[in-house]
């Protein structure tokens, strides 16, 4: 590897009496791609915040290119050639791509207070071209899809740090792949290799271990705020990483297949000839009691739109949704819930969590009308129900009164699942249920899914990965361009291969 760019020695962080990071050593050399993995709350984000100048360490020292390094703000870190791409997107929606990339750096393009947008657009075009992106940089960011925004965010940080430390910059990527499709991920990886080949170093955080194994040169594993392993990627595999991360070895049955139920013949919902103009056409399928029905397809195949229709968020152009022998028409998610259909939405923060409310309120919100007696709720009873779910779903929190936005992603997702289960709905639409969730929580969520079907509920699943979709489902429907192109039975021990399904997707 190249010269040593960055070294951290004995980094620790305290919040009052709690230690969240303990005695971390890390070395980063020029041209390296480093993987950083760990469960939610393991301290990855805290270390990234310390390196990128968002927070100060309580102990330890950092050295950058042989000199002592510390940064009080993100800007200061940028000037040293260290830039971070945050997990939550930080672009300004109503500014153009170019304005976002050069936000706070407009001075370069201004004369006498007037900014030359033309020059800025030319440079912005070059900046995004470095990531193989080609689009009109005078477009507003809010008009772009999430994946493109993510790439622009990376292009922005790349441009900032390369400006000050070309070839010796350090870029921190916090779960950049969550919103990207497989194709886009491949493109991102290719670009990451190019960036590293110019001598820069990258720290890559992801919950997807296969990605980490694919792209990185070296891996650091964190658990409970401490470093449990540091190894070259060459000698690592999923089982080793899993064990170091979770502290126990994987059961080998990641998708809890031994609890997969065989669906009954009873049809709980029948979709007939359903269409939404421009999204999908003539979709028909039956959902059986106890079934996990996976919808596979690339982005834009119509699977998201089918979900939206089923939960009452979008109106179909034509077709029927038959429940209990009657054609149902949902004007909104409320009516869908009344008929026993509830969704676990894809965007956890904006669509799932009611951020500033307590866990109790978040768990009970879909069932409050059912718990009301003579117009009133019983405070003791609602608390008891919330406490029970916290225990059952293994939610780590201080009490049911804690605000949901103080929980880690995996724990918050378990709260949303508890809400879906508490609602009493028999048909649950899970849209990317494990997005941005760590491996340990994933397994707990899979287990919850198995419990749901065992209790006689039916599930429609949009998996976060194809692997997950196959592993969890008892049947998969494959969609392409809004049409069903295939259907696969997925009994335990007889699951279709990813290849079989991808062939129908493309």
């Amino acid at each position, binding site marked *: 590897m190249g010269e040593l760019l960055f070294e951290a020695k004995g980094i620790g962080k305290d*919040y*009052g009496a709690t230690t969240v990071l303990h005695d971390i050593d890390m070395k980063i050399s020029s041209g390296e791609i480093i993987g950083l993995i760990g469960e939610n709350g393991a301290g990855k*984000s805290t270390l990234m*915040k310390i390196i990128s100048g*968002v927070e100060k360490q309580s102990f330890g020292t950092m050295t950058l290119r042989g000199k002592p390094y510390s940064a009080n703000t993100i800007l200061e870190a940028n000037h040293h050639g260290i830039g971070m791409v*945050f*997990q*939550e997107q*930080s672009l300004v929606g109503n500014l153009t791509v170019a304005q976002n990339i050069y936000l706070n750096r407009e001075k370069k393009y201004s004369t006498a207070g007037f900014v030359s947008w033309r020059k800025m657009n030319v440079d912005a075009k070059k900046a995004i071209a470095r990531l193989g992106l080609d689009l009109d940089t005078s477009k507003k960011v809010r008009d772009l899809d999430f994946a493109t925004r993510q790439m622009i965010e990376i292009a922005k940080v790349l441009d900032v740090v390369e400006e000050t430390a070309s070839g010796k910059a350090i870029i921190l990527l916090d779960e950049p792949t969550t919103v990207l499709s497989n194709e886009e991920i491949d493109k991102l990886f290719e670009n990451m290799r190019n960036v590293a080949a110019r001598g820069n170093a990258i720290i890559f955080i992801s919950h997807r271990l296969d990605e980490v194994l694919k792209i990185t040169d070296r891996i650091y594993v964190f658990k409970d705020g401490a470093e449990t392993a540091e190894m070259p990627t060459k000698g690592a595999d999923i089982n080793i990483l899993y064990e170091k991360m979770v502290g126990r070895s994987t059961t080998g049955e990641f998708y809890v297949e031994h609890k997969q139920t065989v669906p009954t013949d009873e049809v709980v919902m029948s979709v007939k000839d359903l269409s939404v103009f421009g999204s999908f056409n003539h979709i028909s399928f039956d959902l059986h009691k106890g079934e996990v029905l996976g919808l596979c397809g690339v982005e834009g195949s119509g699977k998201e739109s089918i979900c939206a229709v089923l*939960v009452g*968020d979008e109106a179909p152009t034509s077709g029927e949704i038959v429940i209990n022998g009657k054609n149902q028409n949902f004007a*909104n*998610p*409320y009516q*869908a*819930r*009344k008929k026993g259909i*509830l*969704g676990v*939405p894809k965007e956890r923060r*904006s*669509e*799932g*969590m*009611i*951020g*500033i*409310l307590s866990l109790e*309120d978040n768990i*009970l*919100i*879909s069932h*409050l*009308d059912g*718990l*009301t007696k003579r*117009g*009133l*709720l*019983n*405070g003791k009873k609602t608390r008891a129900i919330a406490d029970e779910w916290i225990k059952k779903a293994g939610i780590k929190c201080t009490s049911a009164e804690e605000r949901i936005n103080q929980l880690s992603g995996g724990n918050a997702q378990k709260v949303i699942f508890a*809400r879906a289960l508490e*609602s009493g*709905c028999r048909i649950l639409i899970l849209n990317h249920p494990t997005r941005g969730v760590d491996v340990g929580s994933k397994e707990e969520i899979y287990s919850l899914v198995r419990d749901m079907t065992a209790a006689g509920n039916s599930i429609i699943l949009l998996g976060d990965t194809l692997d997950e979709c196959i592993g969890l489902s008892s049947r998969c429907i494959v969609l392409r361009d809004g049409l069903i192109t295939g259907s696969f039975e997925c009994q335990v021990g007889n699951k279709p291969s990813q290849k079989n399904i991808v062939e129908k997707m493309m």
Partner: protein
Amino acid sequence: MTKKKAFKQEYLTKYMYLISLVLVMVVFSIFAPGFLSLYSLQNIMFEAAPLLILAGGLSFIIYTGGIDLGAGAMVSCTCVLTGIYIAKMGNIIVLLMILAGVVMGTLNGVITAKLKLPSFIVTLCTQNFWNYVALILCPNGSIIIPMNMRSIVKWTTVKIGVIPSTFLLAILVIFLLYVFQQYTFYGKSIFAVGANANATRLAGVNIDAAQISAFTISGVCSALAGALYAYKLKSAVPTIGTSLTLTAIASVALGGTSMAGGRGSVLRTSIGVLTITAVTSGLDMMGADPLWKNIIIGVILIGAVCLNSDSQGRDLIIK
């Protein structure tokens, strides 16, 4: 160390609404002798009663993240209706006013929720109706309730023990609002809508119903407050509500209820109302220039709201 400081700040913010009330009491008891006397305190309670009901109801709209700029106009309207028709109808008029409140509030709610318009615009427009009714019925200013009919309104000046009866009525209303807020499905949904309307909708909650119920509650409370003002002033006053909208909103803010929605309590609002009433009453007792009085209240409000509203949102970008 910084953590400790943050903790203190959080603590201060949490209880600032109580601290401001105590502070106001202490300051005025120094500058205005007799401020803490029984008579003076009774006067504050008497003055605060209708405002407590008005601001208590308004709180619910603010929980949803909306605002009602027409609350004062509803007060004017119902004050006039009460003042004019009480001579014919007696105390039963209060029930009719509550019904009028249901209609006015629900209308606002339905327009806001179903047409998906900002409540700011809707209430700014609909208030003209209520003002119209008030002014068309009292074209020449206030109308006094005839002397021979005063026995009907006498109950409002009665004291039970040392507490004015209207204040007890206000306390009862606040208690009911508190129960509604904490222990009903609608109360919980109203907060959820204010905290994250989209997530609440996707959780299968009827958010239109929640929003409309907030407006209905507020309408009822405004109407009740209007009726109470007619009793208190023994007249139909068509312009009574003009300044009340802002006083009520200020009371809610002073209590520390988030203007962005999702958080707050009618108990906090009540303390806010008492603080504002105490300041007004204290300045009166000190003999402050009435022109200066409003300026002083304005300054105090900015200071208090500034201390009350916590600096949420700083940690939004970074998880």
